[in-house]
């Protein structure tokens, strides 16, 4: 394991009978990091989180937290605490009792416990709510209590299982800011499970994209967005146009490609193993494509508008390019007054792109 790895997941696998839920995952998470596990439902992200918490046993491999192997440590002795997806607020206890639940073992004087609970209420901005019962609280308030209840034990790691999934959009955005603020303030490691890529991009220092029980890529949000390593990652994070292409040649640092619908082009590529004859995908983000009403000077591809979606601050276009199977998606800022004529189906347009916007992915 690397020196600064605070949580180290070494070749961890999980199988239920013959079904393999997690395939040999290795991951390092640094101290104080906001780390997200991102993937569609059933990709194994929640299983991995529950293995960190100790609710699922590890079939193979080992998890180390702060240098300690965790296999034989039961959940109630692990230095981690969890915010559950449904918050799991104890219905028979009030807010203060919920937050102070884990303090029993510390055998502190009553006054100290009360003080700690008050501090936590203040931290999550619920001062004065101590005597309320669970059913008197809103979803956002329950979420804060679940946070306070986990944080009062000063865990080394806080695990969050889709904690914002149940909230409406506005509240979710507000809670995202809050989580970020809290994490900065207390400086502990957060491991956050979500299926919402926007949420993961907003919150995380690093993200592990998971699919089918495997980690596809671990990177910073911008790294994942700008330099996805596989087609799956590229299509899971944001929108992406994919064009089939074939490698026709390689000269140091450059690859010559024959791209469907565009023709021959050369692209700077670093350290890939591409060789002549390889079938690849050329990917480009919709917002990196530039739409022109008249033919620009230099390289451009011509097409015609197939569909326009007006979204206020920007518009989405589908442009049919001869030779391409699917229309190209373009997203552009509406920096000028919107002209309904521009949206007409069949209007001829030209597309250009900055040279570094193209990503070559193996197929």
């Amino acid at each position, binding site marked *: 394991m690397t020196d600064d790895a605070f949580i180290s997941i070494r070749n961890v696998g999980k199988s239920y009978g013959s079904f393999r839920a997690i395939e040999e995952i290795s991951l390092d998470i640094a101290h104080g990091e906001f780390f997200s596990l991102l993937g569609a439902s059933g990709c194994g992200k929640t299983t991995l989180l529950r293995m960190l*918490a100790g609710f699922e046993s590890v079939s193979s491999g080992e998890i180390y937290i702060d240098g300690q192997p965790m296999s034989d440590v*039961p959940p109630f002795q692990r230095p981690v605490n*969890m915010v559950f997806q449904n*918050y799991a607020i104890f219905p028979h206890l009030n807010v203060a009792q919920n937050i102070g639940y884990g303090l*029993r073992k510390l055998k502190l004087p009553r006054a100290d416990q009360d003080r700690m609970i008050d501090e936590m209420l203040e931290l999550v901005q619920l001062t004065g709510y101590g005597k309320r019962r*669970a*059913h008197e609280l809103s979803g956002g308030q329950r979420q804060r209590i679940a946070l306070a209840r986990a944080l009062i034990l000063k865990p080394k790691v806080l695990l969050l299982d889709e904690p914002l999934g149940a909230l409406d959009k506005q509240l979710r955005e507000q809670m995202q800011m809050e989580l970020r603020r809290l994490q900065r303030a207390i400086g502990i490691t957060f491991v956050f499970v979500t299926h919402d890529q926007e949420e993961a991009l907003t919150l995380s220092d690093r993200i592990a994209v998971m699919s089918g029980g495997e980690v596809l890529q671990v990177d910073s949000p911008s790294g994942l967005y700008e330099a996805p390593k596989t087609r799956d990652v590229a299509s899971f994070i944001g929108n992406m146009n994919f064009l089939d292409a074939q490698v026709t040649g390689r000269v140091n640092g450059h690859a010559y490609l024959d791209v469907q619908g565009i023709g021959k082009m050369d692209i700077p590529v670093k350290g890939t193993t591409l060789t002549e004859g390889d079938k690849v995908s050329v990917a480009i983000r919709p917002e990196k494509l530039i739409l022109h009403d008249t033919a620009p000077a230099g390289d451009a591809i011509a097409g015609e508008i197939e569909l326009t979606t007006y979204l206020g601050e920007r518009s989405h276009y589908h442009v049919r390019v001869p030779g391409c199977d699917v229309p190209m998606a373009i997203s552009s800022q509406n920096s000028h007054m919107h002209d309904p004529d521009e949206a007409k189906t069949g209007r001829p347009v030209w597309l250009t792109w900055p040279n570094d916007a193209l990503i070559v992915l193996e197929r």
Partner: protein
Amino acid sequence: MREGTYIKQPNRALQVYAIVFLIVLYLPVLFIPLFSFNDSIYVRFPMQGLTFHWYADLWTRDTVWAALKNSLTVGLWVSVISTCLGVVAARAITRYQMPGQNAIVTFAMLPLIVPGVIFGVALLVLVSRLGIPLSLYTVGFGHLIICLPFAIATLLPRFEGFDRSMEEASADLGENGWWTFWRVTFPMVAPGIVASLLLTFTISFDEFIMTFFLSGTDTTLPIYIWTQLRFPREFPAVLALSTIILALSFVMVFVALWIGRLGAVRDQVKATNEGA
């Protein structure tokens, strides 16, 4: 305030029917207390005037006290044991994936459906073949078989409604299995346990047919009433005793259902917990 949708508009005829139905449901039973205060050994109109004589008479009968003691002893033991058995069964069924658990539940529910006579004679045959003398123990075992389905049926929904993540949250916050049970599981299913204790006690206290087949010389109150029914002059005393038993049952069951209802309120909380 009434809900004014077309489908739910009030229906006067149905309303009258419902009220008549409730009256007919309760009226027959109400004649028992009514005539228990009647100053006549005949149960007939016109009534002869108010008296507490029949109750006073009961007070002096040693056999009644003995039967009451037997009923209470059996009822307490049966309610505690059947509730404990119900708790472990409900816990196992909801907590673990077990092949054949539906079959087990159906099997345990048999005494609810199969006529009591059959279980009565079946157990009678068993204890006689084993050479066990009829006593309050055999009565208690018979009651246990009758009460167990009620205990399981009362407890199972409570344990089913119990959210696994509550226990996980407790473990996550540092409590081991034992403490988690006492701090989370038990308080959350407690309404079900109390309801089960009250209901099974009431059922055991009122049980007749099993007791009829399985009791020896020590009898319970329902058997005492049964034997007294043969003597017309004992009718008023039986009415008085029945009144006491009915009152007790009504109170216990009302409390049990009310507590069960508190549990239902908690379920709603849990639902909002999940649905929020």
